[in-house]
């Protein structure tokens, strides 16, 4: 135990730049301006009535791992410590941290933290910042909960892990892997957060050159690393007009955008590769803009004609209504909201102009065997084969997958399908994961309600074995492949109410 003290300050956010710039000059011996642009962009987004608690030294695990595996091997001595800056509402006073009765109040007014690491030119390290810290909270997100100790008080924060790249041990590609693994590792017991050295180790058998200093990764390598960490990854590329990069037979734009949308609706953050003529960049898409259902104008969107037993229907895809996605981009502050067609819209650098999403990697639970496109096709097949008694000739499909646990809990707690219908579905034996297609009319959508859904086993790709559940306005249909030949399809006739649309995969803060 040394007698070295942790240095700290608790100040209004208006003093953030001056404090941090003085700090990096005094401790890291960097020019004060080195942090200017990164902090300016962030503070412009943050609420103005915040205080910050800054402490130094702080051991940031991700940077410390890079330090021992890379920076410490250089001739120049590099500092191994970071600083941490936590944000609170100005209702919290410094004395509250030593008043037991105030701990709940501190928790309610805690918005997360950023770290400052001694790595020029990108000094902002691991960040767990709540979207609630921002002046404007424009979307719904995948968020995970982390527990931290700030000034002696244990605090929870709901955020998506973010970091800038240090450019030597982690570029954008490794940063996206770290960020996704940190998210899943904090959220689910099946995964573990990983450090940069583990990413390098996972890819050591798949690299034909030295791995440090990092020169970036291809999407295929990112997918490989995620698979090594326990995911059943799927990779989708956009069809290129001129057939460059082998992409002339890949997914057409509309299908590609929908597939991405389905995974985001499922609460799965995806790693997207964006490219223009001069560069390739990786980022994590982990949310989307909030939609005002009352303002959706169907005439602006293209429909697909579906021939059902009750006549032709115009099918609209819910994800087509979404234009803007929320991304974790290591060159920008967290929760950067961008149009699908221009993911670098918020960049001021010419080099990043006209980037497009060219492919994305969906890190799926390894037992989800039926991917999004197959689930949609199977649903359409069943839509066409049965009498659904849907009113009107326009229907909207909202497709996503979820765990059986979440599906049943949401059904019981919020959906309100009617007593017998709910009881019937809750008592059905279901697989661990299901694809859910919510079907609604334009009128019901305005009230965020629906009257039909199709549920498909996501752990089954052999359609001869796939279990199906369909809720129509007047009946519930189930398919059990293992039942006798004349009772494979059963029709149940409980009272079925219009129900609330599922919304538990993405959170608003």
């Amino acid at each position, binding site marked *: 135990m040394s007698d070295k003290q942790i240095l700290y300050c608790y100040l209004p956010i208006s003093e953030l730049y001056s404090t941090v710039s003085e700090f990096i000059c005094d401790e890291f011996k960097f020019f004060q301006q080195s942090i200017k642009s990164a902090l300016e962009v962030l503070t412009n987004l943050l609420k103005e009535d915040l205080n910050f608690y800054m402490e130094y030294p702080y051991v940031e695990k991700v940077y410390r791992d890079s330090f021992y595996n890379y920076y410490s091997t250089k001739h120049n001595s590099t500092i191994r410590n970071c600083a941490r800056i936590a944000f609170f509402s100005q209702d919290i006073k410094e004395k509250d941290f030593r008043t037991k009765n105030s701990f709940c109040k501190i928790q309610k007014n805690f918005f997360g933290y950023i770290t400052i690491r001694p790595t020029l030119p990108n000094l902002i390290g691991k960040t767990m910042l709540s979207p609630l810290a921002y002046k404007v909270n424009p979307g719904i997100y995948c968020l995970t909960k982390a527990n931290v100790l700030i000034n002696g008080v244990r605090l929870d924060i709901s955020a998506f892990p973010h970091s800038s790249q240090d450019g030597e041990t982690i*570029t*954008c*590609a490794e940063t996206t892997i770290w960020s996704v693994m940190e998210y899943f590792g904090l959220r689910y017991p099946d995964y573990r957060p990983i450090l940069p050295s583990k990413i390098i180790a996972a890819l050591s058998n798949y690299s034909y050159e030295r791995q440090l200093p*990092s*020169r*970036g*990764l*291809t*999407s*295929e390598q*990112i*997918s490989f690393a995620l698979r090594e960490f326990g995911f059943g990854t799927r*990779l*989708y*590329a956009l*069809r*290129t007009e001129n057939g460059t*990069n*082998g*992409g002339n*037979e*890949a*997914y057409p734009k509309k299908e590609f955008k929908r597939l991405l949308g389905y995974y985001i609706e499922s609460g799965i953050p995806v790693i997207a*590769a964006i*490219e223009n003529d001069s*560069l*390739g*960049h*990786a980022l994590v898409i982990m949310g989307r803009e909030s939609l005002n259902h009352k303002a959706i104008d169907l005439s602006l969107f293209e429909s697909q004609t579906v021939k059902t037993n009750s006549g032709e229907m115009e099918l609209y895809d819910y994800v087509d209504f979404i234009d803007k996605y929320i991304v974790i981009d290591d060159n920008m502050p967290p929760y950067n909201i961008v149009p699908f067609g221009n993911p670098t819209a918020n960049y001021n650098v010419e*080099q*990043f102009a006209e980037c497009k999403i*060219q*492919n994305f*990697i969906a890190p799926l639970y390894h037992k989800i065997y039926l991917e999004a*496109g*197959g689930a949609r*096709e*199977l649903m*359409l*097949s*069943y839509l*066409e*084969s*049965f009498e659904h008694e849907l009113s009107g000739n326009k229907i909207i499909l909202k497709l996503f997958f979820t765990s059986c646990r979440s599906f049943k809990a949401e059904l019981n707690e919020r959906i309100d399908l009617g007593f*017998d219908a709910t*009881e*019937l579905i809750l*008592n059905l034996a279901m697989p661990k994961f299901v694809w859910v297609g919510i079907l609604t009319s334009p009128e019901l959508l305005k009230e965020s309600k629906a009257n039909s859904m199709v549920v498909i086993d996501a752990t089954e790709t052999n*359609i*001869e074995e796939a279990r199906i559940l369909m809720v129509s306005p007047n009946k519930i249909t189930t398919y059990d492949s293992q039942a006798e*030949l*004349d*009772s*494979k*399809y*059963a*029709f*149940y*006739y*409980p009272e079925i109410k219009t129900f609330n649309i599922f919304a538990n995969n993405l959170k608003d803060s």
Partner: protein
Amino acid sequence: MAKLRSTIVAKMNAEKRISYLSKEEAYTIHKATAVRMGKYSREYSKKDKASHIAASKVLLTS
């Protein structure tokens, strides 16, 4: 085991609110689905292969 039951199915059965699709109709649906999904699978394989080729070409480093 005797105490385990599914009351909702028993109740709906008693109220004659359950019916079944005949095996002929079930087979028609099954066949139509198999044809459609077979076609989808072939298309999907091409896109899958092209995706992997495209994903190995560009180094993501910026």
